[in-house]
């Protein structure tokens, strides 16, 4: 049971901090090519911003943004993007996950086609990791009842 506590300092700071955390998560994803980072790391940082919301505020705020249907949709979307790019490379004549053949649809050479293939794949991985982390967190807190209304939130 989560007791609803009003704490003005924590709420103000979290309200300012959550958008910056999300931008930082996307930055770590986008700069995975030139500095340490990538899909898994950016996904965890992005999920941390959504986990900060129930800790500072009420759980209903996070549940309104991440209904159960949307969470599971995002989980599957990431794996679908990853396998979809591999399947697309198969259609264009190469092996599975052979991004060099993507140069048939993108206007770049085979070396840079692998560059862009890696970028799309890391995006898919980030979406899945973010959605799974938020889903596990909300399920552990509400004991599996993601969709039920929270009773006794205001004591």
């Amino acid at each position: 049971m989560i007791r609803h506590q009003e704490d003005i300092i924590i709420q103000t700071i979290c309200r300012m901090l959550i958008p910056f955390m999300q931008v930082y998560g996307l930055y770590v994803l986008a700069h995975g090519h030139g500095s340490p980072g990538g899909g898994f790391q950016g996904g965890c940082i992005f999920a941390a911003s959504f986990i900060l919301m129930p800790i500072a505020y009420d759980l209903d705020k996070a549940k309104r943004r991440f209904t159960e249907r949307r969470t599971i949709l995002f989980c599957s979307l990431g794996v679908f993007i990853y396998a979809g790019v591999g399947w697309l490379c198969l259609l264009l004549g190469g092996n599975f996950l052979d991004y060099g053949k993507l140069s048939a649809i993108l206007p770049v050479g085979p070396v840079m086609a692998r560059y862009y293939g890696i970028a799309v794949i890391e995006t898919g991985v980030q979406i899945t990791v973010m959605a799974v982390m938020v889903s596990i967190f909300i399920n552990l807190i509400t004991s599996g009842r993601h969709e039920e209304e929270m009773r006794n939130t205001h004591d």
Partner: protein
Amino acid sequence: MKKFLGVAIAIAALMVLLQGVEDLPPWGDPNQPASLHVSPRYIEKSLTETGVPNMVTAVLADYRGYDTLFETAVIFTAGVAVLMILRRSAP
């Protein structure tokens, strides 16, 4: 009783491990077998073959992309499994 047995087994296993660790290569040796077979090829050719300066991302997403696909499937399965364990259909 259980704690004493646990400490005894842990110390015995620690002694065995420390004996076995002497034969491993010293820390930071550039000629150890872990850095000799396929790893120099990844280091030297990853920028010219993939165009990505970060070798870890290039190996993870391009040379070993199949492993990363199934690892994403593993974390998806973990999310679904938590949902299924904690949800009871009976009220």
